[in-house]
């Protein structure tokens, strides 16, 4: 075995114009991002927009893991595609290492793609069926100018060892259909790591896997993240896996951020009514669960073409205040260090003498006796 590690590929090959960046600046910085899809009538007339992401800002530091939690249709996939440079933002900016992602062209774009790994949700769908593992892992290296076959082989083997597929020689000739779901996902992770990226975007990487395999994949991701000082954007709908993997988290609802905090703060001290609803709906295995009715907000997420005025959660919120929540955009309140909530219930002026926040929070999360 050679001592090659999964370092970045040689700079000269990677990017023609690497700017000097401040190592303390966030690696990824999303500024008031909007991703709207235009709806057309008769193929040309403007008929409105689907506001999939509508004003989202956050930073990801080097080596930090951030979880994005939300239900389907909340805009998390659009956000992810924008980060990967697959969607052009309608407004706002995505800065990676200080450079605007949507302005990157040709060589710079290639450099950007080598810096950002992508772990797909469905591993079998993400792997080409006609390529064996070796070919799958070799292709990014060929494209990015690693011309020496010996070096390529060393990098491929190293990548397989890092995802616990050893000895590599056993796996190299296999085709995706010969692998189990967990093994396929490990190949996907190896592929995303092979160019030595600084950022990994993981889109529900374990949602299609069995419980016993899920943990193994999360542990591999965690280890890679720590060893390579990787920044990770972990997209999920499952709050229970978040604590094991991420330090920071934000909850998205209808294209906006509802609450953003450290993971422990969200799980132990959730403050937005929507986050509380998500927590109430998730549970740990316990026979007592069968004895309660969960508190689920009525209705469904709103249309993103005509989102409700004011707070987007207000039509479903048990604590909505008439004349406030349905008219005015909720403020951003920092209720604790690094814990931001977008909710009128935390606004001192609106609440006046009433206690701030959601009343009877614990009862809400525990559910009502059946």
């Amino acid at each position: 075995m050679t001592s090659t590690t999964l370092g970045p590929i040689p700079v000269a090959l990677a990017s023609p114009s690497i700017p000097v960046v401040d190592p303390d600046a966030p690696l990824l910085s999303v500024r008031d991002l909007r991703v709207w899809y235009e709806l057309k009538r008769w193929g040309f007339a403007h008929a409105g927009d689907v506001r999939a992401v509508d004003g989202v800002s956050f930073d990801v530091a080097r080596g930090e893991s951030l979880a994005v939690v939300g239900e389907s249709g909340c805009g998390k996939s659009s956000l992810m595609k924008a980060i990967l440079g697959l969607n052009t933002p309608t407004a706002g900016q995505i800065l990676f290492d200080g450079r605007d992602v949507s302005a990157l062209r040709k060589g710079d774009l290639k450099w950007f793609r080598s810096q950002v790994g992508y772990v797909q949700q469905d591993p079998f769908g993400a792997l080409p069926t006609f390529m064996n593992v070796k070919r799958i892992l070799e292709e990014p290296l060929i494209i990015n100018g690693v011309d020496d076959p010996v070096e390529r082989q060393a990098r491929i083997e190293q990548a397989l060892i890092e995802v616990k597929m050893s000895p590599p020689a056993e796996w190299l000739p296999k085709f995706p259909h010969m692998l189990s779901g967990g093994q396929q996902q490990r190949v996907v992770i190896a592929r995303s790591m092979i160019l030595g990226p600084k950022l990994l975007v993981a889109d529900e990487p374990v949602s299609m896997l069995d419980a016993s395999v899920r943990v193994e994949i999360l542990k591999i991701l965690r280890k890679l993240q720590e060893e390579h000082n990787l920044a990770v954007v972990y997209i999920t709908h499952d709050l229970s896996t978040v604590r094991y993997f991420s330090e920071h988290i934000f909850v998205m609802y209808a294209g906006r951020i509802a609450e953003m905090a450290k993971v422990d703060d969200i799980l132990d001290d959730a403050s937005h009514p929507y986050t509380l609803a998500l927590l109430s709906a998730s549970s740990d295995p316990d026979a007592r669960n069968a004895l309660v009715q969960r508190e689920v907000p009525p209705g469904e997420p709103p249309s993103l073409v005509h989102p409700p005025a004011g707070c987007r959660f207000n039509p479903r919120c048990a604590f909505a205040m008439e004349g406030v929540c349905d008219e005015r955009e909720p403020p951003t309140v920092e209720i604790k260090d690094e814990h931001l909530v977008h909710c009128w219930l935390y606004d001192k002026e609106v609440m006046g003498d009433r206690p701030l926040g959601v009343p009877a929070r614990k009862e809400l999360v525990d559910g009502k006796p059946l």
Partner: protein
Amino acid sequence: MTTTNGAVREPLLEIEALQLHFKTRSGIVQAVDGVDFQLPRNEATVIIGESGCGKSSLAKAILRLLPRNVHDFSGRVELGGEDVMLLNDEEYRRHVRWKRISMVPQAAMNALNPVLRVGEQVAEPAVVHLGLSKDEGLQRALETFAQVGVPADFLHRYAFELSGGMRQRAIIAMALLTDPDLVVLDEPTSALDVLTQANIMNLLKRVKKESNTSFILITHDIATSSELADNVAVMYAGQIVEVGDAASFFEEPLHPYSQKLMASVPRLSGGDELEFITGQPPSLINPPTGCRFAERCPARFDKCDQEPPIFYKGERWVKCWLHE
């Protein structure tokens, strides 16, 4: 069977030595291989297992929804004291399926016919199996819709006009329409969002409390399973390896596989380091002799080369030599 207060729990469904083997090009797949369990009346049993353990095949075997490549289908399935395995397919279709056992299939929300109005489809089991007229059937569907929380006017809509959660409710309404003794739910919430999932589980809990229906819930999601379970059965490689009441099972699973499985569930509360099970489940074409989990089992010893019988521990049982 007795409950803690001494009342006799009459079993609704008794399954003994049930086998369902399929013939494939690579060999005989022993998808269900000697399954035993009992389901008490008006209770819910959840069957937990990973993909490929045979849990959906078990559901199909109970409902006799068999594909053409069946190699061996045998055993005893007693429903309310009657051995339904003695019925031929036509008799089973007429007297048992829908009338007494109905099913909510996997990915049920995509099971609705897109060109028929929802009401017509939901009413169909009542028309076909209970001999009601079409209008009576629709009336019945309307009542069931109210029970599961689907607005009445959805009767006249098409499937695409309903959200995933509403479609799932409509399918559950269909399964409840004939007032069956038993409803088999195969992963009823796995494709739904968390809030919708919680909604459907709320609904099932309510229906179970208000009606005399029993449920078999098949799932790989252990946290969700605990939302409905009175009893838990753990399936591994075509066999049920442990059965017990939910309270003691979630407190202290007996089989090493169940223990490992429980230790792999991420918890909201954090807590213990998560574990995973190394290796793969065995192939169902040539399953190992002896205990099928032995190869991956941390507590393996000499005896595991022989097939473990059922060991009873009070009301619970487990197929593992550690509990001899």
